[in-house]
């Protein structure tokens, strides 16, 4: 699927681009391109640095990092920080749980949100306005910690894997973004299918859904990143079942325990920490960040394909 798309998009894009910018000659485009390139180089440096620095710190000995002055190369290379991250063995299972919840959430969100967005994009739909309003408002209030806990408890979602997925199947923000996008799709496409006798579900599934690829790639990324990074649900709802713990929550525990070990008078004073630990919160935090973010970072480059495919409406007609 992806392969096929790449092959198709390559030449098509080339054509599009060349058509778009014919004969870029003269001083003006040169100036613009130079400025643009310089600006992008600046941007790359500025945004790459913090991440690079985090990676470097994660490979540097903790009690050396504490002196500061670690920038782009480790001063005392070590794997200790990673050893500490992988020490307890609970994170392998947590990784699988995180992958499962992310995949499931993304699929459900994409399908349900787009389906709902389609109905809300239909101007003739009688419930369009109330449903839109009801969803939009959810962005601006929160019932609070304890009432939400009761809800999950009553729905038997405490210590249940589904608590990672069910409460967040549709996000109002994504819904509106998709609805807005669908709004830019020419109405004629829907009309012509309707004349062919297609019902709304069929129109949604056959026409709209495929046309939404660029925005769905975006939303998929948002949902996946959100699901991957969330830890609060694990903290509130599943923390007493170790086998349901997620990667983010395990890493958080690890991080806070290293902060604790370094700031707890009773520990420093007495048992267990006779000598200094060689890992420090700063170095653990760096290693944790790398372990937590690298898997999800892989997603974006795949999504990017869909951004540049270009919705060439003329070619959709089949």
């Amino acid at each position: 699927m992806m392969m096929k798309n790449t092959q198709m998009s390559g030449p098509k894009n080339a054509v599009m681009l060349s058509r778009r910018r014919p004969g870029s000659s003269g001083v003006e485009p040169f100036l613009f391109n130079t400025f643009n390139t310089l600006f992008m180089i600046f941007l790359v440096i500025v945004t790459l640095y913090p991440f690079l620095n985090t990676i470097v710190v994660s490979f540097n000995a903790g009690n050396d990092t504490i002196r500061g002055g670690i920038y782009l190369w480790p001063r005392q290379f070590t794997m200790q920080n990673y050893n500490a991250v992988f020490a307890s063995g609970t994170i392998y299972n947590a990784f699988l749980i995180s992958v499962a919840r992310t995949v499931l959430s993304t699929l459900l969100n994409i399908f349900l949100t787009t389906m709902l967005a389609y109905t809300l994009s239909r101007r003739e739909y009688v419930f369009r306005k109330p449903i839109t309003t009801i969803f939009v408002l959810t962005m601006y209030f929160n019932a609070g910690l304890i009432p939400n806990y009761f809800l999950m408890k009553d729905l038997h979602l405490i210590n249940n894997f589904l608590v990672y997925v069910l409460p967040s199947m549709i996000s109002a923000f994504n819904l509106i973004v998709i609805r807005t996008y669908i709004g830019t799709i020419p109405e004629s496409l829907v009309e012509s299918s309707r004349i062919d006798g297609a019902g709304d579900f069929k129109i949604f599934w056959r026409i709209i859904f495929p046309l939404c690829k660029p925005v769905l790639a975006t939303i998929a990324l948002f949902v996946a990143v959100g699901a991957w990074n969330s830890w609060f649900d694990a903290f509130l709802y599943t923390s007493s079942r170790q086998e349901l713990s997620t990667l983010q929550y395990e890493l958080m525990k690890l991080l806070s325990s290293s902060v604790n070990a370094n700031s707890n008078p009773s520990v420093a004073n007495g048992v267990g920490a006779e000598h200094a630990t060689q890992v420090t919160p700063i170095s653990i935090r760096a290693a944790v960040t790398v372990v937590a973010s690298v898997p999800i970072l892989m997603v974006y480059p795949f999504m990017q394909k869909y951004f540049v495919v270009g919705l060439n409406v003329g070619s959709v007609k089949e």
Partner: protein
Amino acid sequence: MEEIATVAKPVNPKKQRNNKRLTWAIIKDQRQLIYMSVPLLAYIIVFAYLPVWGWTMAFQDYKPARSFSQQDWVGFKHFQFLFTDDNFLRVLRNTLAMSVINLILGFTTAIVLALLLNEIKKMFWKRTVQTISYLPHFLSWIIVTGIVATSLASDGIINDLLMKLHLIDQPIMWLSEGKYFWGVVGASHVWKEVGWNTIIYLAAMASIDPALYEAADIDGANRYQKMWNVTLPGIKATIVILLIMSIGHILEAGFEVQYLLGNGLVVDWSETIDIFVLKYGIAQGNYSLATAGGIFKSVVSITMLLFANWTAKRLGEERLL
């Protein structure tokens, strides 16, 4: 009947909106739309609206160990605590200021970056820049503020640079002057989120019909004219909708950055509503105050949202509702 039957085929959308009346015929005609949306409506009501009974907490001295009927009702006590605190107005000002700064900076930088990225011809370079620019989004605020604090230190890179350029001759104490604080927070947000915020505009740009660019070329439009007349209008709907939604979040200036970068010397500029509520609410086991703060924010949010939506309607722009 005849008229209703045509409703499903939107020949003239403008006209229909006025004609919307709930009849069985319409329901039958739109049954697929209903099947596709009403169960999800029920879903959101259960998961988002039902627990709102919890807002009653704001009017109680809520004790988690007691049942609903055993709680002490205290009326507006917690709202009073919130609104009459000496610091409240200052905290509100800080929240609004930082959130407006974030809003303006966030929108303009993301849109400009999206436009510039869109002008890059080499696909590989474009993707590389995109991918790298969104990396800081994945760093936690504690790491980002750590780097910000180091860079802004008296021997940090910012002061070094300014000194070398002879723009200053004394290091600036960025984090001990209240007047810089909002700017530092705004800049940190841009740095962390600009690449991420760009993604949504890039997706919107992908939907622009290339024929429009061709037409512009034929008209002899230059690059800036195409940006202004084709690209920007092409993503306008997205911009407007995102803007309306963000205006609803006007009291969401966050707390992490301010908490991590703030200190006693700048507290008059750094403390936000969220920090205030955290300090006297959750941290004191006072869930009632936390709820009261939440209600206040929701009321303001929804008012602002409706106002923004109304304004958009008046201006004839894309609307949220």
